Every structure is written in C-alpha cells, then in structure tokens.
C-alpha cells in the first residue's frame, strides 16, 4: 500500500491539470479511494504524472537482435550495466540489451511499451525477449501487410477468409494488434522491386494494390474489435515527395480508425534529396480535420543510431546512400527486415529537415490526444533521449537556438522557425502517457483514476525540463516503487497484453497445407503457446 500526498497531479485522462491531490494505491497495485497504513511518499513541490507509454518502439525480436549483433562498435563505448544481487548485466547504447531496456525505460518513467513489428515467424523469440525486459508492461503488433497467404486471399476477393486468417495469425503470434509496413512493398522486394504507387497492382499480383491492403486491413481490425486500430507504416518511407503517398494512404482508410506510425518519415516534399523539404503543415492539417487518426512523431535527434525496419527495400536504399553496414533478413512468406547503422548530422540538409519535421508534427497537430512522443526507437534516436524532445517541445527559445545551428539553406524548407507553441506539462502528460494509452486501447494505463494500474512517475519540479524528465525522483510500477533517487529499487516482471480475436474454426486447416507447402519449419511449431508467456493478460474479442 502506498499513498502519494501533496503532489501536483497531471492526469489528462481525468482532466486533472496540476491540482494538488493525494493518490492511494492498494496491495493489488491499483488506485483506490483510500487506504489504511502503508508507506507515504510526500510529493510536496513535485510533479505527478501517469507512467509513460511508448506506442511505437522496437525493443525485442529478430530485428533489434540483429542490430545488436551488427553494432559491436557501440557496445565498446556505451554504458554498461554491471550485475548486482537484484539486477542483471547488460549494455545500453543504440540497441540496449533486454534487461537494460527495462532499466532504462523505467529509469526515465516509462512503464508500458509497445513492440511495433513482430513477424509471426519470430513471435516466439520476441516473447522470450519481452519476458526478459523487466519492470515495464508490454504489447506487440503482428506484421500482416506483406504476408503472402493473407495477400493471396485478398487478391482472390475472399475478404471473410482473409479476416479469419488475420485473426488466426494475431492469436498464433500472441500479439495485441496489427501492424502494416510498406503494404505490398516488402512482398515486391523479394523480387528486387518495391510498391511505390498506392493504386498500381503490387508486382506479382494482378489486382491487389497497396491501397487495397490498407483498406482491407483497417476494416479487418475494426470488425475484429481490436482495442488498437491498424498500426500503419505507409509506403515510400523516407522518400522526398512522399507526402502525396501518405495523404493518399490516409484516404484509403475510408474514415476508419488507424494509428499512423512515425509520420515524420512520411511528410516530405520536393523531388529529390537536393530539393527535399518538410510538408508537415499539410499532413498536420489532415490530422487536425480527421479525429479518426492518431500518430506518433518518429522524431529524429542528431547523433548515432541504428535504423531497423521491416521495410527491406528502403533499408537497401539507405545502405546505398550511406555506404554503411547493411543487414537484410528474409522472413519467409511474411515480411522482410533491414538494418543500417546511421548518424543524423545537423550539417546534413536531409537530416536537418527530418529533425525539424518531427518537432513540427508534434507542434502543428493541435490535439495532443492525436500525436504522441516517439523516436521510432532506435530509428530516429534512442528512447532514452526522450527528455531532449520534451525540452524542445516545452521551450521555444531553446528550439530557436537549435535552429540557429542548422545550415542557413534549411530555413526555407521547414516551418519550425515560425512555430511559437510551447507544450504545457498537461500536454506533455497527454502525449507521453494518456494519449498513447488511449490509442492502444489500454484503459488501465496512462490514467490515475480509481481502478487503474498504479503506474506513476514523480518528478522534482525543475526549470531544466530535460534534467527533470530525464531523472525522475520516483517511478512506481503497479504500486511498487521501482526507481527512487536515481536507483533501481525493485525489478518486478511486467505483463504482456494479448488480444484474442475470434475466427472461423476451419481457418487452421485452411492455412496448414499452404504453410507446409513453403515454410521451412513444422506447422505445429509455428503458433506460440499461451503457456509459453510469463505473465499474459488476454483480452477476448467480442464480435463474432
């Protein structure tokens, strides 16, 4: 039992904006009206937030593990976590190891993370890693937009069967939602091609288009009653002039709900790398007039990182552009994956436009319930640098100083210098916690109301917001004090959120022969057993 007294509470889910309020937590790790006895944390002069929720990150599974293996140079220079009685060893850096990931997220006040790209084929591996990420609660999304068994059904016009197959996959992967990455593009990549036009048939198909996949998957998610709508990584990521593709994609949703991932990478104008500019104003306007959509920024921070995505063709292009290392994975019939270490430099015009675009989206989309803090970790920057972004959002003068350091040529290509908006603490609490929790459909997260999970982060009020958000005074996860005065006190194991949609019982018999025809593993080893997961929390779909 725990009570937090006299703190200035920011709880956007309940409209509480900086009122002094006491919070009570029972032995089950939930907020209650009152308690008897137990510890009291005097939060006088401190700021109380709901624990952070990362709606889009890459922390477990084949891709991030490949990135770890590919960047030994980073391991040599990065922070080491030395084993203690209560803590496991690990390293931080661009692609932190599993245990370190949990310590770093919690150390920053984040208590829920969503691993945004998991092929069914590596779901087992991903869950093993997720269970080794301590403290935080987790969810994962299944990659479906390039799954050939599914696409073949859509091509044949068998929508109902495709829906059942999608549902079967979600349950087979023990995942929480559906992710679409470069719909059709990775399938085409297997033939050395890409899918650049939303309305042209995908190479290898006669009728099916990327736009068609978007429409169908959004409808499938809606009809299955998914708590989190389609999580969409649009086509033509990172390409100058891709704004038209992005807007077209949003139109293909036909008014359905969707979460658009790392929009910063999808908001460029210009014709090539020399004329590339930010078109965030246009995209932000679309979001401002379409409340069915949410997004995360995918903001870029200058410095070294490693880019990882299922978007294989884009990674090959990035490798060709940079001459850096390149890793490519072929995930059988399901998707692809590419890894390229990358350095964002302020002196590089393209990188500078990317840096500005991420912030512009966060500032131009008016409703913080629609746009969330993310760097698409580790693609735009590492998650443990979120406090830097918060500072850029809350301090317009600091932002102006940073813009001054960019090349002069940049200023015509971005709108950031004209934006004076500063985030309030209430808006930060929305964009880092309440908003992403609501978009994920996690009602018990990002919310300090009665009955919700007692995930709380308490900051010492400080004018230096980067220091304040980077070093919380207390972090409480499920009622347990996990971080206190900069030390890790407890490392409880987190839960995994899973959604079980309903599907036609004959679906498995339909998939089996197709699977056995071309996969390299046995079908019986393919779905992940629920018993395999350490702390699953299953939510069942209601619609038939």
């Amino acid at each position: 039992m725990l009570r937090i007294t006299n703190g200035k509470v920011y709880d956007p889910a309940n409209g509480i904006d900086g009122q002094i309020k006491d919070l009570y937590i029972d032995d089950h790790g939930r907020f209650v009206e009152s308690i008897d006895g137990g510890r009291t944390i005097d939060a006088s002069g401190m700021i109380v937030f709901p624990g952070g929720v990362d709606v889009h990150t890459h922390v477990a599974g084949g891709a991030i593990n490949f990135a770890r293996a590919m960047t030994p140079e980073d391991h040599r220079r990065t922070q080491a976590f030395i084993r203690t009685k209560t803590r496991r060893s690990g390293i931080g850096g661009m692609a932190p190891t599993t245990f370190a990931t949990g310590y770093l997220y919690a150390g920053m006040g984040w208590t829920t993370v969503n691993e945004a790209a998991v092929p069914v084929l590596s779901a087992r591996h991903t869950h093993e890693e997720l269970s080794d990420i301590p403290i935080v609660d987790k969810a994962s999304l299944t990659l479906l937009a390039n799954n050939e068994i599914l696409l073949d059904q859509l091509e044949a016009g068998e929508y109902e069967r495709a829906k059942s197959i999608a549902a079967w996959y979600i349950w087979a992967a023990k995942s929480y939602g559906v992710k679409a990455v470069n719909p059709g593009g990775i399938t085409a990549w297997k033939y050395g091609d890409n899918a650049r036009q939303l309305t042209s048939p995908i190479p290898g198909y006669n009728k099916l288009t990327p736009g068609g996949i978007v429409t169908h998957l959004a409808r499938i998610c809606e009809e299955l009653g998914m708590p989190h709508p389609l999580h969409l990584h649009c086509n033509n990521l990172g390409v100058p002039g891709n704004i038209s593709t992005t807007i077209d994609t949003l139109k293909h949703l036909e008014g359905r709900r969707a979460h658009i991932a790392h929009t910063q990478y999808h908001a460029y104008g210009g014709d090539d790398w020399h004329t590339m500019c930010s078109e965030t104003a246009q995209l932000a306007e679309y979001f401002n007039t379409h409340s069915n959509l949410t997004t995360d920024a995918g903001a870029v921070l200058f410095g070294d990182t490693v880019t990882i995505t299922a978007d294989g063709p884009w990674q090959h292009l990035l490798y060709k552009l940079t001459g850096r290392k390149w890793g490519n994975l072929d995930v059988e019939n399901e998707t692809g994956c590419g890894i390229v270490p990358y350095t964002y430099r302020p002196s590089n015009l393209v990188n500078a436009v990317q840096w500005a675009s991420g912030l512009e989206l966060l500032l131009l989309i008016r409703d913080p319930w629609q746009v969330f803090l993310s760097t698409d970790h580790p693609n735009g920057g590492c998650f443990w640098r979120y406090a830097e972004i918060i500072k850029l959002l809350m301090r317009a003068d600091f932002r102006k100083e940073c813009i001054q350091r960019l090349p002069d040529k940049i200023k015509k290509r971005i709108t950031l210098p004209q934006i004076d908006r500063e985030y309030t603490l209430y808006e930060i609490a929305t964009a880092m916690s309440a908003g992403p929790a609501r978009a994920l459909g996690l009602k018990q997260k990002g919310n300090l109301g009665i009955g919700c999970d007692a995930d709380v982060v308490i900051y010492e009020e400080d004018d230096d917001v980067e220091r304040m958000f980077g070093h919380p005074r207390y972090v409480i996860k499920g009622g347990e004090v996990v971080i206190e005065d900069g030390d890790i006190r407890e490392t409880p194991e987190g839960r995994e959120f899973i959604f079980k949609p309903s599907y036609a019982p004959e679906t498995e018999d339909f998939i089996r022969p197709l699977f056995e025809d071309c996969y390299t593993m046995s079908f019986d080893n393919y779905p992940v057993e629920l018993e395999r997961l350490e702390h699953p929390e299953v939510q069942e779909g209601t619609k038939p």
Partner: protein
Amino acid sequence: MTRETPEMPENGSPVVLRLKRSPTVPLEAEVISPDVLGRLSNAEIRSLTVYHGKRQLPLGEFFDVEGEASQDLELHGNLTKVRWIGRGMSRGSITAHGTVGMHLGAHMSGGRIEVHGDAGDWVGAEMKKGFIHVHGNAGGQIGAAYRGSLSGMRDGTIIIDGSAGLEVGMRMRRGTIVVGGPVRDFAGLQMKGGTIVLLNGAEIRTGAWMNRGTIISLKPLQLMPTFAFATEFTPTVFRVIARRLAQWGIKLPYAASEGTYRLYSGDLAVPGKGEVFVWQPAA
C-alpha cells in the same frame, strides 16, 4: 586514477619492467603506458591492477619493477601473452626487448613504441597518432579498425621490419604503414585513406573494397579483376615519402632511371577511388 600521495616529479631514467612470472592465460595490462606510470612511485606501479584472465592481480605479481616516475618504459622478457601494452598512450616511449602480445599501442594518440622482437595482432589498431616500430614480425589487423568500427588508424606511422598477417590497414583512414617482409591476404581491406607500403609484396585480394588511399608495392601483386590498370608513372610525392622513409633506412625507389610504377585504380566493385602502385624496375 585517484591518488593519495602527491605526484612524483618525472625523472630522466626509464622505468624498467622485467617479466618474472609467465602468465598462463592472456594478461591484460593496459596500465603499461607512460600516461599511467609517468607520475607514479615504484610501489604504486607495482600495485597497479592487471587482469590475468578474469582475475585482478597487482602488476608486481608478474613484473620486477625498477625506477619510478618516468615517461620512458623499458620492457624485458617474453611478453607474448601480455596484451594492450601502450593502449591509448599519448606521450613518452615504450621500448620492449622481447616479443609482445596483441593490441600493442591500440588507440594510442602520441609517443613512440619500439619492439625488438615480434608483435601480435592488432598493432596500433585505431591509433590516432604516434609511432610504432616492430623490428621482428607482426600479426594481422595492423592499424586496423576493430570489428564494427567505421575506421581504423586515423594518423601516425607503423613500421614492421618483418612479415605481417591478414587485413593489414583494414579500414584505415590516414597515416602510414610500412611492412618489410611478406604480407598475407586482404592488405588495405576497405581502406578509406592513408598509405600502405609493401616492400615485399602481399598475397591475394590486396586493396579489396578500398574506397580511397594508396598502396605501394615493390613486388608484383596478384590484383583482383576489379582493379583497372590506369597508367605508368611515378608521382612526385613519392620523393617526399621516400625522403621520410629514408630516416628508418627504408628505400623507396623513385628515380626514373631505376624504373617506374604501374598504377591500378579500384576497387571498382565499391566503386572506389583507391590507387595501387606496383613497382616496375627498369629492364
């Protein structure tokens, strides 16, 4: 390093380390560097920590130490298993009489290392500046980038009188490597700049993946098909290089009467702008 006693003034005579007990497993001894020993008393030097496998032991367990507080170190004994000598040093000198182990002078940014004997792999790996002269043979990855790093040595000079192993100058960005004896495969692998002088040629795949940089060979090379013959000539700058190398008794021919160099450019598979010069003595 935190110190309780005041710093010793430097003195003129070198600190002499004599190996008294042979390590049974590799001994990681990056403390053997003028930057660490330069201001320490004899007792402090003996108590410095070295890693014998996973065990932390004082330096005095393995070495007799004479002298104190000097920028100049002298090492004696068979140091084959002693690694990281002169790691990251920025000043002073190390003179070793006997064979030394892997990672000699890795990451160094200044000073001189001289070895009267052989050296292991990774001599001067990722060094920034300074001078290393190995009078015997050396292993592979001389002046190279460690696995995963973008670039190897950034400046400085490494001279190996004897032979050298694989991947000499791998991903080096600047600086000079001279090898007197035969060199094995992949010399100048993925080179980004700098100069490698091969007095006795090299085995196969020399300059593979090179982007920029210069490889000079005084013996014929079996070049990869991705290197294109460009022309025959002796660049004027070779006189400057030759004059610099002459101070260590190395003779780089450049007079037209003696012959000329055949220039190959590549590696065209990258495609790179590197150059490989192969000496063609006058008939």
